[in-house]
């Protein structure tokens, strides 16, 4: 299990000590051309999460490769580059530009809720990116589709090496006094606690639908949340909104996860991956200190 950040939730150059606590750093989405992003106001807190409408602000691929990547290389952390665009050609062009760079993976942002233009089809976009690079390709998908499992299968068939689940979903916040939208763009991407059950369901569905490794994300704030995403089928987990409130979250969550694993008798987080799909309830790993004959959930001693 690797711990990453969700794209757009950490700047490794302004907070290198936070990035170094991760197993890989995922960049903010890069597009072929520079983008200023949306006008302020760009964020709003709600009772169940936060909304953002940053709008893919980035320096463009040329300046990113020339200026940002060399600085990121100095971190000593594997770099995943999030790639975005408004046509399959945009994705292919950016992936091709990155193909010769020292990066660990490319994550295709196929689902930004904060731009109006959307790529034609996930299948075509992944295929175009696949043809443009030999780097591992993760497809980041939105849960706001009719059949996410079908989308995941399409990404797999088109050559994706993994899935990042999930991106934010659209939400709206109204001002307490004026009753007008808080965000200048109106709607924004909802992240945080409200997204967590959605992420769990998405990871669960895609684990059944494909064999692709999954980076699970969405509302993770504790070690227990990591454990549940692993059980649903994620192989790795990314932290998003929690980093805003607590830059110490990676270290804290790892420690909490250790405690959760020990309490349930798992020697290794990788042994939890996909457990939610197992009909067999005696699923503790071989190094478990816990009696596998006991049903942990009901407290019943099956053997007795």
């Amino acid at each position, binding site marked *: 299990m690797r711990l990453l950040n969700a794209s757009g939730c950490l700047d490794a150059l*302004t907070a290198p000590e936070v990035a170094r606590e991760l197993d890989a750093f995922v960049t903010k989405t890069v597009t072929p051309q520079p983008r*200023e992003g949306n006008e*302020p*106001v*760009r964020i709003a807190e709600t009772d169940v999460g936060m909304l*953002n409408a*940053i709008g893919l*602000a980035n320096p463009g691929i040329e300046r990113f490769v020339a200026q940002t990547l060399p600085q990121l290389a100095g971190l000593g952390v594997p770099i995943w580059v999030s790639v975005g665009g408004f046509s399959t050609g945009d994705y292919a062009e950016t992936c091709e530009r990155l193909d010769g760079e020292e990066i660990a993976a490319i994550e295709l942002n196929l689902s930004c809720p904060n731009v109006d233009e959307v790529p034609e089809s996930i299948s075509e976009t992944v295929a175009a990116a696949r043809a443009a690079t030999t780097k591992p390709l993760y497809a980041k998908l939105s849960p706001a589709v009719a059949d996410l499992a079908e989308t995941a299968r399409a990404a797999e068939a088109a050559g994706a090496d993994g899935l990042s689940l999930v991106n934010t979903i659209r939400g709206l916040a109204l001002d307490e006094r004026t009753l007008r939208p808080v965000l200048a763009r109106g709607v924004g991407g909802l992240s945080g606690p409200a997204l967590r059950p959605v992420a769990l369901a998405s990871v669960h569905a895609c684990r059944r639908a494909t064999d692709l490794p999954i980076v699970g994300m969405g509302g993770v704030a504790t070690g227990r949340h990591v454990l549940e995403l692993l059980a649903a089928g994620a192989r790795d987990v990314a932290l998003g909104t929690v980093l805003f409130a607590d*830059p*110490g979250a990676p270290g804290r969550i790892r420690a909490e996860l250790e405690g959760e694993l020990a309490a349930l008798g798992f020697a290794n987080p990788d042994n939890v991956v996909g457990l939610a799909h197992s009909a067999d309830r005696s699923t503790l790993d071989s190094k478990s200190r816990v009696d596998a004959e006991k049903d942990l959930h009901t407290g019943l001693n099956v053997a007795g």
Partner: protein
Amino acid sequence: MLKREAHSVSGVEAVGPYTLLRVERRGLEAGNPGQFFMLEAAGRLLPRPMSLCLATAGELGFLVDPVGPGTRALCSLSCGDRLAILGPLGKGFRLDVVRPLLVGGGIGIAPLPYLSERLGGPPAVLGFRSPWHAEAAVLVPNAEVVVEPTYVTEALPSGHDVLACGPAPMLEAIRRLVPDAQLAWEAPMACGYGACWGCAVRLDGQLKRLCVEGPVLDAAA
């Protein structure tokens, strides 16, 4: 280095409509006047950015205006309650000024008491919307106070190095009158340390992060 630790509330007092929240310092750096801290707001997902109002050997003080759920939660704290604090963050006021004049509007006076202390009690001009709000002027020494409909820009003496904090229209007016002023701005922030890009403001024609480039900016920027 980002340092976020829990601190105990040591005082909560009303100052006009505002609340002066004091926390035990316990090794927390005060930073430069105009820098800010992210304060955990109980029951809310995101912390709230607050500039430092007072610094003593044992306490740091923050002046809070209860305008939303987060600031209301902060104003509802009691002595002994604990809250996580991250900071100091951002860039504060430059203190290499010859004839400082502090200018504050409303809750924008928050960083001025600490700034005044560090500058040896320079003159100040403070503007408020009502006499009740103006009760907070007691926190800033050597202050001339104006109340709406009079604005601070009508009471500004010339020939000073202006250091100002207040609502955006006030700062825009000062920017036009005093091109070399230092202005402390405000924007919604999720993180306060450059991660979220939520606090973008337009500087030199570009959208930049206020938490990284500011919150204190030169008026010409």
